[in-house]
């Protein structure tokens, strides 16, 4: 009673507001906030699932076209050997292609294998010198073969001599992996020193 007499009406109102806030806080923290979080989480999950569903539906709508394109693929497009063997055979092929009169391979280096979800990217950096027509022929043969090869970058410079050029080429070859193909441990181990070498170029 003594305490009650000491408070005026305004103080009582403030006390009531404060008490209401104190009571409302646990209610907010334990009921409103978890519900809001659950709602936000479910909403984001729904968005991601809708996007996934749409993606699958879109993929399936293209199934016939994709299957037809796949049927036309050459056997050499697929990864059948280890990374080491694949790289070795590709380098050998390049060497064979470079055997042209008046053209030399100055330098050739395999770069680390890049492993994607459904394919692998083999990369080679090489430097050749010779007459421009020969270099062009070499570049054409390397990219128009049966394996899927592309040019990442190149630097072409003129050198001493009529029509003589020096060309640094960065080539990449794609090999498709089937779902069952495990990541090549051998290839990974080999790739590491090669990367160190590549940084030094």
């Amino acid at each position, binding site marked *: 009673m003594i305490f009650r007499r000491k408070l005026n009406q305004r103080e009582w109102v403030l006390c009531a507001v404060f008490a209401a806030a104190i009571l409302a806080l646990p209610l907010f923290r334990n009921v409103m906030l978890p519900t809001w979080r659950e709602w936000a989480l479910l909403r984001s999950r729904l968005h991601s699932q809708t996007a996934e569903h749409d993606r699958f539906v879109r993929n399936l709508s293209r*199934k016939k076209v994709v299957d037809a394109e796949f049927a036309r693929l050459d056997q050499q497009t697929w990864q059948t050997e280890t990374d080491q063997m694949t790289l070795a055979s590709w380098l050998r092929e390049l060497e064979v292609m470079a055997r042209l009169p008046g053209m030399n391979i100055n330098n050739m280096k395999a770069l680390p294998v890049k492993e994607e*979800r459904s394919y692998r990217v083999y990369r080679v950096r090489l430097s050749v010198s010779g007459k421009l027509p020969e270099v*062009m022929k070499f*570049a054409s043969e390397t*990219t128009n073969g049966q394996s899927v090869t592309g*040019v990442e970058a*190149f630097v072409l410079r003129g050198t001493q001599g009529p029509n003589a050029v020096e060309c640094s080429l960065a080539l990449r070859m*794609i090999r498709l992996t089937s779902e069952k193909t495990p990541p090549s441990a051998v290839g990974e181990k080999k790739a590491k020193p090669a990367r160190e070498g590549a940084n030094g170029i």
Partner: protein
Amino acid sequence: MPRSQKRIETPSAETAELGKRLLPGKRGRNRSSQIVVCLPCNGVAHGVHLRLNRSGAEARQHQVSTAAQAAKVLKEVGDKCPIVAILPKSLYLLRVFELPKVSAEEVPPILELEASAVLPPEFGAVEVCYRLVASRKEGYERYEVCIARREELGAYLSALELLGIRPGIVLPSAVAWVQLLKTAGQADLLIAALGSDQLEAVSLGSDGTVNIRTITAAGGAEGAERYQRGLVECVRPLLTTRTADASALSIGWIGPHCPSHLANGRVMFKDLGEVLPSMPAKTESGGEIGVLLYHFSAALVEAVQAGELQTSNLLPSEIRRRQQQSALRKSVLWAASLLVLACVLAYMAMRTMVHRYQERIGQLSTKIESIRKEGEAVGRRIEQLEAMRAARVTGSDFQSIIAGLYDSSPPNLTYSGVELDEQGKLRLQGQAESLATAFLLPEQLEKNGTFKEVQPGDASRSRKGEGTVVEFRVDCKLNRKGSGQ
């Protein structure tokens, strides 16, 4: 149930005119004003509820003698309608004070002090309210002050409180009369019944102040004759101030029993029922008061709505504060209730959405599981095909660049370096015979179609052997066909 309830006027030509006069068009089409003017008399509260809108005026007269009747009437009237209680002249004094100009906040305490100075000490505690009248001296203001004994005012309010009526404004009849005189035309004296067996006679002085006298009915007479003696006493002082050739004294009479003449013949009575908006038929009892209250309500409604009569309110400040607190408490309670309701609604909405999302996610998961394996397999193939396509597109870069340069290079121009990076940016360096040739190159390259975004770089003349050559640099992008770039 109210003892009597009579609709005074439904929209008619006259009341429509009243509505238009009091509610000018510029204030909005749908605006409406309302007021309740009441007066307790012998345990019965007489009241008139006037509602004005663009289509006209509508008034209801009520007489309530119990709290239940009053509650019913107040419910019908609504919370937002201002309730004005008229204080008869018998309960207050009128004094005029002249004060130096002061701020509005300082006026009430000064007037209270002045009033207590002029009143005898046995008068007791008083409540004052005021209205400004025309000033006669520069730097001074004149206030017509209504002074009521707090004790009598308390008894008056208690009578209303017993019936459950809590007025927002207690207005001295003088203020109501002033408002009415503005519309009542050019009568020298206004007389109307205000209370049982008593009339109030009001005249407006030349200085803007109001003179009010209460005329009490004499016993043993009927009708207007009851007041004859009082009337004579009231009219005599007015006649003495008039010159002999002046026209007859005009007395405006509100309500029934308007006398046709007074014995001396120098007085003319005018029934204001013909001038003011049409009146209702007399009700069972207390009808005379109802008629006057009706005219008061019509005269006061706009001023009350505009808050012009705040200084004329005799409601004690303590009660006013209590009313404000009550209103505030009600608003806070409403706001808190709405907040709680909003929270509950938000919670329910979220729970509903959670439920719906769970359902939709369940349905989607089933659908996704049924197509996941095949969809992922096709997606993987699409990814593989796209990688192959991207590699193949770059396969012919070397040849197409060389062919493009061969086609678009002007004569007498050679290249010393051609660089293509992984982003498809191409840098060309070389020598030309003249600056004109070097500057011609970008245009030719752009036309070729193999290159895009061609930007000429440096071009400078340098010494070579015995002659000079122009060394240039051009940056551009490779326009790969089929790559979408």
